[in-house]
């Protein structure tokens, strides 16, 4: 069920009504759990079984693990949890990629093997809820936390519908404690949740889908040599599309949860105002970056085992982070490029970046360079094939023989202010909070802005485009 669909609005209205009925808290949680299962099954009913498997395996594994004093037995139970969760993820998300890659590899040695066609459908959001539930068992294994005593609360943690299919990836200690006591939003909190939701929808439906998406999709999908201007413009358009698509979804999720009385953390913090690449990863898809840091980079040794090992750990983390994003080697390369960026930063200008005394002009220049470097990597996301990647990169530097314009003048006129406003907005909001800024806006102007946004969202209409990050 897409947030930008009428049926979701109807579904959510029913959920809100039941949530605010004068019934006891346990019943409300059961209702939220059932609503979450319904939300997930509404897309493809059989896949709800995956959620149940994940929930049951991790619940049982963590409880038994907690009672074990033997490190070996604890490790076995952790392996069971990892095997179940990563096994499902590997099969559904990477099965086809691995089989095809294996087939191509052995073909290099003269062995012809045709992979079976299993026609695997990717369950929506499997990467998100797999990571979310894995953090629970890993925390219990590392004795960072005790297993949850309430199965209902744990199941709701795994399945909570606002952030189930595209994050933010919430940690057990962020969400489960909120299930312990009855929650309801005040009228003002509810209204703020609605405003966040509508602002998120505006980003998704209007900015990402209606304005930016068609142009970027076409420029990279056509896979023909473009003029240098068009190649850069399409790249910038995609940077806006992927930000508004994903940040919009996250904001919708935060708003929906807030309407129900729950608080989930931010997932984006003006990422295109980042000064340096490590700063970018503190601002883009924050919940994933933190997850990779806490459950992959640090367990690998982080920066505690020498310079050489730190570099390896960093690259491994970014490579796997890239693979997490999609079942194609392009995503791995994307992760590798980001890993290289981070290494270069660490080895060269890292200290300068983290130095407090930087002139405003240097900071702005550094942020623009960071943004452009990030934009270039988005081509691995935007281009559907390696060939298209190559053509796009060549077009960026004018290494073309017969380039054509692929963007209409009207689209240039419409997209330019969106990109400029996005960058200025990120720059302005770099060290600010949305709530504080809204606090400063006079009520009448705030009402006018909200009215315009709401009207534009409704008039632009829903679309049948799923959120880009659903595929991850």
């Amino acid at each position, binding site marked *: 069920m897409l947030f930008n669909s009428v049926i979701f609005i109807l579904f959510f209205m029913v959920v809100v009504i039941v949530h605010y009925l004068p019934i006891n808290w346990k019943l409300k949680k059961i209702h939220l759990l059932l609503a979450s299962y319904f939300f997930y099954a509404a897309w*493809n009913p059989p896949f709800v079984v995956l959620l149940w498997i994940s929930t049951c395996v991790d619940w049982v594994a963590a409880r038994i693990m907690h009672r074990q004093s033997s490190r070996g037995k604890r490790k076995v139970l952790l392996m069971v949890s990892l095997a179940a969760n990563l096994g499902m993820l590997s099969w559904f998300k990477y099965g086809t990629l691995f089989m095809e890659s294996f087939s191509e590899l052995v073909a290099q040695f003269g062995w012809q093997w045709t992979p079976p066609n299993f026609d695997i459908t990717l369950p929506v959001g499997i990467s998100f809820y797999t990571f979310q539930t894995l953090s629970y068992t890993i925390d219990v294994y590392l004795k960072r936390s005790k297993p949850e005593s309430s199965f209902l609360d744990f199941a709701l943690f795994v399945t909570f519908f606002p952030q189930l299919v595209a994050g933010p990836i919430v940690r057990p200690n962020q969400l489960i404690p909120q299930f312990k006591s009855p929650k309801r939003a005040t009228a003002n909190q509810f209204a703020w949740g609605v405003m966040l939701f509508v602002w998120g929808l505006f980003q998704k439906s209007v900015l990402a889908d209606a304005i930016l998406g068609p142009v970027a999709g076409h420029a990279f999908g056509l896979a023909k040599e473009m003029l240098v201007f068009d190649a850069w413009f399409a790249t910038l358009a995609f940077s806006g599309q992927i930000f508004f698509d994903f940040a919009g979804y996250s904001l919708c999720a935060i708003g929906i949860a807030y309407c129900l009385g729950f608080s989930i953390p931010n997932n984006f913090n003006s990422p295109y105002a980042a000064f340096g690449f490590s700063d970018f990863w503190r601002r883009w898809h924050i919940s994933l970056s933190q997850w990779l840091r806490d459950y992959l980079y640090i367990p690998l040794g982080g920066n505690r085992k020498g310079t050489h090992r730190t570099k390896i750990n960093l690259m491994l983390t970014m490579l796997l982070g890239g693979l997490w994003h999609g079942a194609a080697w392009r995503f791995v390369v994307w992760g590798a490029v980001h890993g290289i960026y981070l290494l270069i930063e660490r080895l060269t200008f890292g200290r300068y970046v983290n130095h407090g005394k930087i002139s405003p002009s240097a900071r702005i220049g550094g942020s623009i360079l960071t943004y452009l470097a990030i934009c270039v990597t988005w081509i691995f996301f935007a281009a559907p094939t390696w060939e298209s990647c190559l053509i796009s990169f060549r077009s960026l530097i004018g290494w073309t023989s017969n380039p054509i314009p692929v963007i209409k003048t009207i689209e240039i006129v419409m997209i330019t202010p969106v990109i400029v406003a996005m960058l200025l907005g990120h720059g302005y909001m770099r060290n600010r909070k949305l709530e504080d800024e809204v606090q400063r806006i006079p009520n009448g102007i705030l009402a006018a802005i909200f009215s315009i946004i709401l009207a534009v969202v409704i008039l632009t*209409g829903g679309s049948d485009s799923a959120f880009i990050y659903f595929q991850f």
Partner: protein
Amino acid sequence: MHSSISSSNNPFQRQTPNKPLIRIVLGSTIAVLLLLTTLEFNARQNGILPTRDMNMSFWQNHRFRLDDQPADTTVVFGASRFTFGLDHNTWEQNTGKRPYNLGLHGASSLPMLHDYAVNTEMNGIVLCAISGGFTFANESIPFSERIAKAVKDINKNRYSFALRSEDFTGRVLQANFAVLNPYLYSPIEVLREHLRFPPRKNERAWFHVPFTVHHTEENQDIYIDDLSDPYYMAQWDSMHQTVLTYMERYDPRDLDDAIAQMKRDISLISQRGGEVIFVRFPVSRFFKEWEDRRFPRDKYWDIILEETGCRGFHYLDNTTTRDLFPPDGSHLMPHQAKVFTRELVKFVYPED
């Protein structure tokens, strides 16, 4: 005792601006509803019709409803030439039955034919468009890929509540309120319509489908209402040039493979008493030049009829339809669609 968010024990609690937000949200919502009501009233005063958004969920739901039709229903597969070029009313007046149109802009008829053969038990007449570039388009082309994917997932999507419900909400809202026609009232589309710039030299831009002057009804009755504005004509031309660029860019599907699949599908349909009739719609201008060059009749149309043994209605073989000239190169205007439909009926149901 319920606790509000701010009093929870959540260390990640959010702030809420200290403003009368509930009044702002309610006031804004009422203002927006008033605006929509005014626009709707205005639309009705000006005779603007509600239209369904012709997207993939609309098509898939339309396909699901095919399962509820009588087995001998005449079904139509093809791209936009069929959606614009077949006049349902004329067909019904001449045959007594309304056809079921599953045409989709830019789509190949072959996956649709395959779906009909293997996923239904229907045994009526199947009108299947052959349009060269679209019919044999490479499945890597976005507008070709979506139909292939939709057909591949048809049985999975049948049980998707999210998808099926969009049909319900579309029927209740879009089909009844003109203001929900995004082609007319979306501020983004309004900007695209009113900020008119000349095309760039050799432009092969994203095709902004100029649907401002069309409307879609429930049975996929789609009409081009007006092409008199040169700007719209330029939009169609630009769109078609881009479409042709895509089809040049990606090699077409292998004809032998396609015919082999068609023969298997046609065999299944014939075994249960159905008949597949191929239809070639009029084309003109650069579209005709391109299709004649890339998909010449003797290497495609004639071979297909010969190999499959099916009947085929080619517009050039009919003295009336051969003179029909689609102004945009590819689509018949409503008055032309009536003429074409009448001649097609005569071909499908020849007088004894």
